[in-house]
Every structure is written in C-alpha cells, then in structure tokens.
C-alpha cells in the first residue's frame, strides 16, 4: 500500500497526459485498422503490394536520411539543405539520362548506363555538399547551434533557385528503362521489377556505408569525432578532413538516391523536388534515432511503409474524408508517437548531457 502511494506521488500530470495520449492514439489505430480490415474492401494482396511499394519508397527516404544522420552525428547540426543536395544530383542527371536514352545506350546496356548515371549524380551531389560545408557551415563552426540551422535553410533556398536558374522551372522526366519496366508474380501478388531493383540497390549502398563506418580507418575517425571532437583532435585526427568526408559521403548517397528515385518515380524532376523528400528523410532520421546509421535506414523503411498503408488502413476505417490527403499527418503522427514512447528514436542512444 505504502509502496503504491509512493509510486503514485512520483507521477505528474504530464506523465498522466502522455499515457492518456498513448492509449488514445493506439486505440484509434486499432479501431481504424479493425474497421478497414473487416469491411473487406481490400484483399491481402492489396496490402502486400502496398507494403512492397512502401519499402521501395522508404529505401529512398533511408538513403537521404543517412546524410542527415551522419552530419548530425558529427556536428550536431541539422543540415536542412540536404534535400537540395539530393535534388542537385537528380536534376543534373536527368538530362544525361535522356541523352543516353536518345542514343539507345540506356536500353542496350542498362546496368552500365545506370551505374554511370549514379556515379555522375553522386559526384554532383557530393560537390554540392562539400562546397556547402566549406562555404556555408565551416565559417560558423563555433557559432551557437541556431546559426548554422538558419544558414542551412538559407542555403536550401539558394540551391533551389540556383538550379532553377541553371535548368529552368519546367518538369523533367527520367526515361523508362525497358529492362526494369516488367512485373513478376509471386503467389497472387504482382510486383513491378523496378521496386525490387530500387530496394536492393538502396540496401547495397547502405551496406557499403555501414561497412565504411564500422570497418575502415576513416569510419573509425568519424565515430571518434562524433564521440568527442576535442579528444579526437588530440588523438591526431584531422577534424576538418573527417567533416568534409562526412558531407561527401552524405552527398554521394543523396546523389545515388536521386537516380534511384528517377528509376522508381521518373516524373516530376524539378528544382523544388528535394523539399518534401528532404523533410520525409529528416523525419525518418529522427524516427530511427538521429545520429544512428542503422536507425536512419530502419526509420526510412518504416516511414515508407506507414505512408503507403496508413491512410487506407487507419484513416479510412475511422471514416475520415480525404484520407489520402492526410498521408503526411499519418507520417508525422507516427513520429510523435515514437517520440513519446522512445524520445531517442527507435535505435537512438540516450545522449549524455554534454552531447545534447
């Protein structure tokens, strides 16, 4: 009895409110999902094919999210211009991709052509990311944390409108690669080939990054700098080199993601295309635990799937009009939910006072 009272004394109104919120959200999700599933409007194959397209979309989010998480891990800053780093590679490469398509190179040697495109996009995005660090962020390294954040937003506008100046405001489209345009059937589910290719290409890139961070000397330096910059410097690590390298790797992944995104969603390549994926990728990074590499990967895939099945599964069951317009609401509610249960994100570590 005494024990129970002591425990209740420690519970504040905020805690109670948060518990109430958790229960309400979970109930809403359960009721919505139950209603939809019992209405029988969709079959199990519908859900599977939605999940697969969600995974493909999520793997693109994950690739971009890695750029956010790597930079945050090292500099503790949110590089809000990262969506534009993604755009710069995708937007530049679309013209080369169309040239390859015209000459027939793309469909004669699809694998080689896509690899070349990815390398070009990665190089462009990497240069943009490195220049961004050199010009916009390095001079502000010692400034309060809000300053580089605002600078990042400014840099983001600068990049958007510079690229609009370079290539115009019209919409460009990636060519369709015939080798990837078919479908195959597993059981009753028809899966577009391109979704599988996109997913595994992204997984391959992420594995490469994981290997780089965990197994190489440079990766070790990155982890050391992220742990403690001053001590790492005392151990003889060139901090600036590590930071530039981190931005370069983030840019490389974002550029490759630009081409992968072009294979998956060929339409709508224009100067503003980086904004929404940037926000979604940032959300993924926070979902997974910002600063954590596997967290960003998991967060991206999770967000992709939730966005894909969430509106039809939950909102429609609750009888909400315009369920698909609230797709983003689902994504951000998930973010809130995860942060209530695990403030550090799915795979994030609790930050010590000093780092936070």
């Amino acid at each position, binding site marked *: 009895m005494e024990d129970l009272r002591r425990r209740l004394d420690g519970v504040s109104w905020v805690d109670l409110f948060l518990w109430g919120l958790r229960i309400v959200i979970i109930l809403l999700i359960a009721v919505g999902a139950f209603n939809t599933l019992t209405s029988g409007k969709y079959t199990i194959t519908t859900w599977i094919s939605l999940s697969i397209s969600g995974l493909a979309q999520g793997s693109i989010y994950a690739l971009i999210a890695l750029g956010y998480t790597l930079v945050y891990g090292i500099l503790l800053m949110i590089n809000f211009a990262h969506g534009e780093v993604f755009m710069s590679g995708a937007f530049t490469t679309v013209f080369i991709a169309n040239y390859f398509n015209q000459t027939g190179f793309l469909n004669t040697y699809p694998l080689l052509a896509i690899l070349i495109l990815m390398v070009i996009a990665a190089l462009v995005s990497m240069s943009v990311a490195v220049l961004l660090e050199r010009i916009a962020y390095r001079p502000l390294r010692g400034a309060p944390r809000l300053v580089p954040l605002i600078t990042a937003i400014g840099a983001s506008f600068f990049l958007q*409108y510079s690229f609009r100046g370079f290539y115009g405001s019209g919409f460009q489209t990636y060519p369709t690669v015939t080798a990837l345009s078919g479908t195959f059937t597993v059981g009753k589910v028809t899966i577009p080939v391109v979704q599988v290719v996109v997913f595994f290409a992204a997984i391959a890139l992420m594995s490469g990054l994981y290997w780089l961070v965990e197994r190489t000397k440079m990766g070790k330096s990155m982890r050391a700098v992220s742990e403690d910059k001053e001590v790492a410097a005392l151990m003889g690590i060139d901090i600036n080199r590590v930071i530039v390298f981190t931005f370069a790797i983030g840019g490389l992944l974002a550029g490759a993601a630009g081409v992968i995104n072009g294979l998956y969603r060929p339409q*709508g390549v224009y100067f503003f295309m980086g904004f929404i994926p940037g926000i979604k990728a940032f959300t993924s990074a926070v979902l997974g635990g910002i600063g954590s590499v596997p967290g960003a990967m998991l967060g991206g895939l999770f967000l992709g799937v939730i966005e894909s099945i969430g509106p039809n599964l939950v909102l429609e069951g609750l009888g909400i009009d315009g369920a698909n317009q609230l797709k983003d609401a689902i994504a951000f509610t998930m973010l809130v939910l995860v942060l209530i249960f695990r403030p550090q994100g799915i795979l994030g570590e609790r930050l010590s006072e000093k780092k936070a």
Partner: protein
Amino acid sequence: MKRIALLLLAALLFTLALSACSGGDELVCEDAIGCVTVAPDEPITIAYMLTISGATAFLGEDSRGGIQIAIDDRGGKLLDHDINLKGEDSGCSAEGGQTAAQKLAADTQIVGIIGSSCSSEATAGLPIISEAGMLMISPSNTAPALTDKEGTWHPGYYRTAHNDLFQGRVAADYAYNELGARTAATIHDGSPYADGLQGVFANRFKELGGTITFQGAVNVGDTDMRPILTNVGADSPDVLYFPIFEPEGNFIAAQSKEVAGLENTILFGADGLLSESFPSGTGPAAVGMYLSGPYVEGDAYQQLLAKWDAKFGGPPPSGFHAHAYDATNILLDAIEKVALKGDDGTLLIPRQALRDAVTATAGFRGVTGTLACNETGDCATGEALGIYRITDAEVSGGNWPPEAVWTP
C-alpha cells in the same frame, strides 16, 4: 492674428502658382476613383502578379512570357510612352496573393495588373487591388466564385481564362455522353481550382445519371499515389477525373497502370495538365488520356509560339501564355482608348473609365478566340474549350498540342 493672415496669403499664392505650372484646366481628373498621371518622359507602368517561384513557377513564367511578347509587339511603347512592366511574386497561395497585392496597391503609378496565376491568390489579393482603384485581368484563374457577385468578385476583376463552370460541365458531358461512362471517381489536390472543378464535374455527372464512386484528395508534393489509387481501384470506375497540376497529375497517371482495378479506367484531366511537358513526362501511361482545356488554334497562335521560341527558346512551359497575351492587349487597348493626352505629352489615365472600357470589351479578336467581357469580368465565352486526347505522337513524338477530339 496678423501672422496667420500672412500665412494664409502665402498659401493661397503658392496654390495659384502650382495650378499655373500644371497647365491650367487642360487635364483635369474627373474620375470617380482617381487617375494615374504619367509625366511626359515617364513610362506607363503595368504590373504582373504571378507565381514565379516555388513549385508552380512554370505557370507564372508562362504567363509572364505572354505579357512580355504582347509588350514587345507594340515595340515596348504605348501612346509614345515606354511601357514599364513591374511584377510581384504571389506564390500560388492566399498569403502570397495578399502580400503581392499590398505591395502593388502601394504603387499608385500602376495602371493595371495582369494576374493572378492561381485562384487562391486572387481570392485573397483582389479586395486590396479593387480598393486601390486598380484593375486586374487574370490569364489563368478559373474558379467560378471569382466572377460571381455572390462569391468573391470585386469591381475591377476580369479574366481571359474560361470559368470552370464551363470546363467541369464540358468534361462531364463528354465522359457521360461520348465515352459512355456511368461511374466516375475524382481526385483533387485541395486547391480551390481543383476542388471546385471536380465538384462541378461530379454534380453534372450525377445530374446526367452517372454514379460517383469516390471523391478524394492528395497533397501538393505527394509522389506516391498508389494508396489513393488503390482506394479508387476498389470500385473500378469507368472514368478517373483528376483536374490537378504537374507533377502530381503525372504521378497519378503513371502509377494508375500499376494498380489493380484501374485496367479499364479512362483517365481524364483538365487544363492544369494541358502542357507540353505532361505527356512526355508521364510516358506511355498518358496514351489514351483525355484533357479538357482551352481550344486555341489558328495562325495567330502559331505566330505567338514562333515569337516565344525566338525570345525564350523552346515551347512555353504551360497553357496560359496566349491568355496572358490577350489579357495584356485588352489592358493596353483600353488604356489607349481612355487616356487623355496633354500638349506636352502628359497622360492622364482615369481609373473608372479604364475599368468601364475593359468591361465594354466585345468582339475582341484575341489569340484565344473572340472575347467579350461581361459585367463581372468573364471575358472568355467558355465555348473556346475542347477535349483533347493524348496519343503516342504527343508522348514520344514530340507533337504538341494534341488534336481536339470534341468541342461543345
């Protein structure tokens, strides 16, 4: 006391001197809402209020090009004065429209405005423009409420774009009568334009005896349309009507081929998608799709395209450059008609008379057809609409515009 009398005398003398300088009784503004005075060596200022940044920049740049060509066609001069084109970005949003309108209204030298691009901008900005005594002619607002006295209409508003009451109706008529569709689903993007248009379509379709199976919406900026298409596909409607913009429209069209239940559904869009980049951007999925839109044809339009190519290179980015061209010409013609000219070249442009002159526009032979403005500012008759069918020639052959398969 003596001092005050002296002061009064001085003021009187000063006023007399001023009126003597300004040329006496020659140019007097007798207009109910004021005049714009243009000094002999000063330019006549007109302005645009268009979306020239952000995701819809293509729409504003398209219209701005039309305005510039119309000014070039007159050698940049009107009544021996240079034409000065100013502009504000209104960003295709209500807030953007309001800010831009406030900035423009503050400049009393502006005679008239070509804009806005999006109906949402006009809804917010029009009261301010109207209050300032200016007039605006929109090349691309199509929301019905803007020219409805019960709606958001204000004096001084005109448009060369067609009213969506016509467009939604034409689309529904074609889908029901010509395509034989009996079930339809609609998708909009939350904008007044798309929401209004799908509403007109749905009502007309039901009136004809059809069934609407689904009315949903996506967000501007969405790329993954499979969830909503899965929803639409559950009922396999005969027609899917999505009067939205690029790039969301491209995504819907392209991804509809990946979703079960939509194999036999006819895709139907509106003028927001009637741009050269849409078919080639969407790819094979666009073949067989129908679009409603302005039916602009003839030599005058070909000449306009040639001028565009010479000035900017390539084709215009969207479908309202001709409307902007016509809007500019209506404005400049009206200025020419009402401006009073002094001996020294000073111009006096009365604002109410200018509005009246635009309202009186009739039988105007524009690029977009013969225009006649009514008292709430609808200058397009709505008959200059067509239904286009996209074929392989547009998707991979670079042909534009597609052939109109039907005109009401």
